[in-house]
């Protein structure tokens, strides 16, 4: 698949803070790329440079076919609201289409509103909507002009589980249509469900990148994913366990080099009712904690 966007060695400094410190990555056409990182990692600043809101101090941002008006083919959902609160929903959406040089019809807007279950609100003003519904209007605004490249900064913030599924399905649909999506998020589980490619940013630097599979497999396939009933707290104390993240009815256990997963199973039998036992690559969250969380904890000490 061809590359649509190349970000090369981009630096952005605010005062003495290097918000983005030599970030490089590419985005492949027709994929969903997850831009991951903690709050303040430099995700939003990177996105603002891609959208042309900030100019990078150094480095370059290149679009593949070098279009005259790249911005018109980009749909952008900012991290925070980004809405004219006192405008009517339909008027606001038409305005957004106009500033992207796109022709839009009321019918098209209504179709989108229906899809997002907002039809009954279409006559109202934006400020009358709930936070989640505002987010949905904003998302429609980013998509209304049929962009080829879609940049979403935390699209699922403020959404309930039903709407989260709605958005996830929509993004997958958009990808199926051949559009490219750059998705910034700190919800690892969501990224894991949707992203083809992963870029993990920390303190303004890319610490990890590649396809989701590549990234996960590079951490080996010696992670145990357990679902069970009972008190699993003893699992962390077992001799073959390197690290363990134990929840109420599940656990993700990193095994030591050369350890035999069957020993963990044997130790568990009798103490837990095992419902799932899987040896696989670590979850994105575990990788994230491993790459970013540990360092942060060190810094704190």
């Amino acid at each position: 698949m061809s590359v649509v966007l190349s970000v090369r060695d981009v630096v952005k400094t605010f005062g003495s803070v290097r918000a983005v410190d030599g970030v490089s990555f590419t985005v492949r056409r027709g994929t969903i790329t997850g831009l991951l990182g903690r709050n303040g990692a430099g995700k939003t600043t990177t996105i603002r440079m891609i959208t042309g809101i900030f100019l990078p101090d150094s480095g370059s941002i290149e679009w593949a076919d070098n279009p005259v008006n790249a911005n018109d083919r980009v749909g952008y959902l900012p991290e925070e609201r980004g809405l004219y609160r006192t405008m009517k929903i339909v008027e606001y959406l038409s305005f957004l289409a106009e500033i992207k040089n796109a022709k839009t019809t009321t019918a098209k807007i209504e179709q989108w509103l229906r899809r997002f279950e907002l039809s009954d609100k279409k006559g109202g003003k934006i400020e009358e909507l709930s936070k989640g519904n505002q987010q949905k209007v904003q998302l429609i605004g980013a998509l209304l002009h049929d962009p080829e490249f879609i940049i979403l900064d935390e699209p699922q913030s403020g959404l309930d589980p039903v709407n989260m599924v709605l958005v996830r399905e929509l993004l997958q649909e958009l990808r199926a249509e051949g559009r490219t999506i750059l998705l910034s998020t700190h919800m690892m589980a969501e990224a894991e469900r949707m992203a083809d490619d992963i870029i993990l940013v920390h303190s303004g630097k890319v610490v990890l990148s590649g396809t989701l599979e590549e990234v996960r497999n590079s951490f080996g396939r010696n992670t145990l994913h357990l679902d069970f009933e009972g008190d699993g707290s003893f699992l962390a104390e077992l001799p073959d366990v390197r690290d363990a993240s134990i929840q109420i009815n599940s656990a993700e256990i990193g095994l030591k080099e050369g350890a035999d997963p069957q020993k963990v199973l044997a130790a568990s039998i009798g103490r837990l009712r095992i419902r799932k036992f899987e040896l696989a690559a670590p979850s994105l969250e575990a990788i994230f904690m491993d790459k970013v969380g540990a360092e942060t904890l060190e810094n704190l000490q």
Partner: protein
Amino acid sequence: MNKMFAVLKREYLTTVRKKMFVFMTIFVPVLMAALFLLPGLMVARGIGTKRVAVIDGTGELRSAFTRVNDQAKPDPKKPLARRRGAELPQTIDVDYIDARGHANLKETSQPYLHRISSDDKATKLDAVLVIPPDAFEGPEAKMTFYSRASTDFFTQERLARVANKSIQLRRLSKRGIDADAVDALTREVPIDGVQVSKSGEEKKGGEGNFIIGFLFAALLILPSFVHGVEIMRGIIQEKTDRVVEILISSMSPTELLTGKVTGIALVGLTQISAWLLMTTILGSFGAATAMLAGFNLMQFLRPMVFVYFFVFFLLAYFTYVCVYAIAGAVCNTDKEAQQMIAPVSIIMMLPWFMMLAIITNPDSNLAVIFSMMPVFGPITMFVRTLVSDPPVWHILVSIAVSLVTIALFFKATAKIFRVGILSYGKRPTVPELWRWLKVA
């Protein structure tokens, strides 16, 4: 271009639909008329009728202080200036007390003086005028005017005039000169102020011109300040709501700024067009009335005045609006922006504070210099064209200076916009602003 137009359209429609806009458009002319006319009327008429006791030590001036025909109303068709100055005004009610032969006038007047500070509405007096017995002959004779408000010199002046006129008449008739002859001989000749322009046209009534100068100057700058604040707050709102990210990622800052400023300019044009229309309608009634009073209002409002008004309105408007847009771009809250813009607005209002000097001396050095300065130029020049007849090159220089100023301001605003609009956080210092100008 389409994007700019989209911004323009949005800006225009949202502002024009606001209740504030509708309210201002309808009520400002009314308010302004009230503001300009009321104080004048109040001074001219006094607030209600004054009740005055005249204690006449000579006992000979009764006729001067009693109206021959109490029902004689002032004739509105008779120009104010032509009315005889010595008539007792309708708004003064006089209690005449003949105090001839009273040894001690002070004693006689005492009860009346008490009534000045009395609380009883029925007997309360506003003032007491005491005329000494030797008013006709005594070289040192002095009348005394007692009143509650020592600043009510209009009433004092009027009564003094009535008394003096009558005293003079008496003195002359005592020397055997016939009263009618005295009247004829001492008649005052009224004066008309006439403005002469190079084209030779003449217009009368400087006072009218004076008021119209102020009125139009206010109409000229008011929308700039009101909508300037609007644009400033709009930009801050866009920043806090992050709409600006969508805007800036979709168009250039220059497109955005052009759209905004022209949108707001159209709002201003709409408003003043409405005002001028209303003024014309109201004015034609007013002019008719004024004309009856011997005062031709339309002579000041030559068609050229309206052309100049629109030209200088736009120049002033764009200048001010750019300044407000900068404030909006560099500040993060309304409060911060207000603090920043307050001293700047005062400087921009300077011609307004000097308006009296400019209107009364439209061709003085001060007025000429002001009219050719950036920022101060449009309003000063407009007022000069209204009340005087400045050379064409003055007008052209003024317009040129303003155009250059606007171009520079606009460029600077666009640059500051680029950097400032997305710099969340602390308001920049002046050196920082300067750096932005150079860097962007």
